[in-house]
């Protein structure tokens, strides 16, 4: 049985959909995405222990396969540092310290890119290749996909940061001038009420996901370098 709410809305209101709703969506999506990411890397964790237990042809971990512990630790540390900076940036955002959060986000972005660069250096300088046994395969597969996920998270961070920088002079709560990201050339205005207010929920969702990804990076470091 259904009745309709007393407050009428029309398409003008639809065009200005409240940003809170999108914030909730982003929050849910961040958590759901983290679940999917966990199951993705679970496959590599399974592969690690499965191949290690079988040690087929004695080629799980040949003697010359020596993972670059220093560089691997640096990748992990940079990822954790970047995630921590984003979390601190969320606190600044909540306290309306806009320049501070932008600075932290920019540093976090640079640190994240640094993690990618260090990983590439590690791949190109270590003394074994992907064909050198079970461990080497898991190492290359896991780290390659880890970097792919990091790139995705950094893209998300860059989006938020770029919006914050582009509209840095717009007062809190004010609508920006039309210039939305839609591909419709004829669109006269925004379809989200105050789209700039979405930066904070977006940042909170990203912070959760980025922290989760950094946690997976720590797990990868323990499994690939310490065990």
């Amino acid at each position: 049985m259904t009745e309709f709410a007393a407050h009428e809305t029309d398409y003008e209101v639809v065009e200005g959909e409240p940003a809170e709703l999108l914030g909730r969506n982003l929050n849910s999506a961040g958590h759901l995405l983290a679940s999917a990411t966990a199951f993705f890397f679970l496959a590599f964790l399974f592969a690690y222990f499965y191949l290690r237990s079988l040690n087929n042809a004695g080629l799980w971990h040949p003697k010359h396969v020596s993972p670059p512990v220093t560089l691997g630790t640096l990748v992990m540390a940079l990822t954790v540092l970047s995630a921590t900076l984003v979390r601190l940036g969320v606190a600044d955002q909540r306290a309306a310290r806009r320049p501070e959060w932008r600075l932290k986000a920019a540093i976090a972005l640079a640190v994240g890119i640094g993690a990618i660069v260090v990983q590439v250096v590690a791949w190109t300088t270590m003394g074994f290749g992907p064909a050198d046994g079970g461990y080497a395969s898991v190492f290359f597969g896991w780290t390659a996909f880890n970097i792919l996920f990091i790139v995705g998270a950094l893209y998300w961070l860059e989006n938020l940061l770029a919006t914050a920088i582009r509209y840095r002079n717009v007062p809190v709560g004010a609508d920006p001038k039309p210039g939305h990201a839609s591909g419709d050339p004829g669109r006269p205005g925004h379809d989200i009420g105050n789209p700039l207010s979405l930066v904070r929920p977006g940042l909170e969702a990203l912070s959760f996901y980025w922290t989760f990804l950094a946690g997976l990076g720590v797990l990868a470091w323990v499994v690939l370098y310490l065990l």
Partner: protein
Amino acid sequence: MSTTVVETHRPIWRRLIGFNLLTGIVFGVVGYYIGWFIGHHITGASVAYFSGIDQNDISVTLGYLLGVGGFLIGLGFGVYPWARIRGYPPSLREKETQGASRYFGLCTDHKVVGIQYMIGIGLFFFIGGLNAMLIRVELLRPASQVFPAGQYLTLVGMHGTMMMGIMTSAILGPFANYFVPLMIGARRMAFPRIESLTFWLLMAAGAILTTTIFFGGFPTGWTGYEPLNSQANTGMDSYLVFFALVGISMCLLGLNMLATIITMRAPGLTWSRLPIFCWGVVSTAILNLLAAPVLIAVLGMAVFDRTVQTTFFNPQGGGSPYLYQNLFWVFGHPEVYILALPGMGIVLEILPVFARKPLWGYRLAVSGLLGVTLLSWLVWQHHLFVSGINSDLRPFYMLSTELISIPTGFTFLCGLMTLWRGQIRFSVPLLFSLAWFFNFLIGGLSGVFLSDVPSDVTTHGSFFSMAHFHYTIMGGLVFAFFAAIYFWAPKMFGYTLNERLGKIHFWVMFISFNSTFAPLFAIGFLGQPRRTVTYAQHLQFLNDWVSISAFILGGSMLIFLYNFVYSLLFARIRAPQNPWSSVSLEWQLPTPVPLHNFDRIPVITGEPYGYGSPGIAAIPAAGPAGGSA
């Protein structure tokens, strides 16, 4: 009152130039050749490491990946990310224009995406079905006659892969995308662009799989088992990229569905009031979200094995083919329920409407759906019973598999008790729903034989298991798919499908389906293995029977196609707003459904199946606007 509708009156040549399917195809082809060129450059002498690889899987794989990228950019998916990189604020809706052109590109209207899915999936279902017809042509004679063994394997592989890949979205794609927002009182999906992206990824995947014939096909069937996978020619890359794209599409589809149902339900629509179809979608979406990443990961490993020479699945290099089998089935068995659960949701949604009774045991039905979802994670090793797994593991997986019949039984109980003493009207959607019970029961009972280790040892890999999964998947999914089309077509298209043709379609399909697949149980018991082009002479009669039945089954699809085209394009009899007198929210909306669904957000104040309550018609006041052909 302003809307986002943008009327376009540009000349046709001008409209063809923008971001649309045509541009997508052109960019896709260009992207493929760029990837192919880069791949050849990599495999050339420039990088010594790759020069020893004897086949150019890198070129083919890179070609596919960049081809998909080009395809998506051509469709318009690059505009928004590029604008966001430059800091422009987000928006929700895009290309929600009027006219036919919105179906040929990126469109964020969930109703458009639903119809895109229906047509797109129908296209690939048709191709997969044609493959099945060719398989049955080959099996008319015991010896190889039309196709050599290698081509036959590719045919079987393409049929299985197309059906198991594309059809994962057969219900969620068209019906959940279209109706979940309407059923929960929302104006859109949570992430409309992602919704559109899932569809176009699936189309790109289907196109890539069909190109395998240019690379010699693949010999592994739909499971892609190692070590055959690593040894196969470049046609195998089509399979790997296809299934990875399907996995990404499934994962995003599940995420979008869950986010939508969690956050965008109308006021008053508590979890205990959620329509049972939405519960089926929730169950499926959970599996989509969590199982598909495992598939993507294992296919990623396989791609690495074939391109950069990792040894995940190569025992001579420290890997193991069993790793592939384990990880594949961690995804593969939940996938069976990804195919089955939406069908359960649809059938339980339809029964109360045609029995004019509330759904019996709503909470029991929900617990059944969630129980199947949970247990589907604990059964995957029954696929490895004869692969040489540790025999100590067998009892657990045998019991966990048999346990799954309990929550499945809940849905049967709820469905049958809903029909009990109902005022049943045998319209086409109900007929397909009843057939679902019959087929799925046979599929379920035969599944017990396969979950039981002693009988599985003799039936595994035979036509018996093929009969079993066709009863569950085609009998469960496809019959539910048609029930849903006949049920919801009046709302989706504004016209009712012809009832008489629908009944002819149903009876021909139901009888020929059973005539096709029931004998396969016997054929399997008599020892005919799957994926083998020749068979023993004494099995020819049964095989011919099956082939002829299969041709009739294929013909029944043409009856549907005729009905669909005739009713929507020629007869065009307007359907009333609520032809079935359903109390569900989607039927309270006008037809066609407005662009933004609801002028006013509804407030839900009661249970979803209030049949028998005062004010609800005991018998539908108006029958569907049918007519004779």
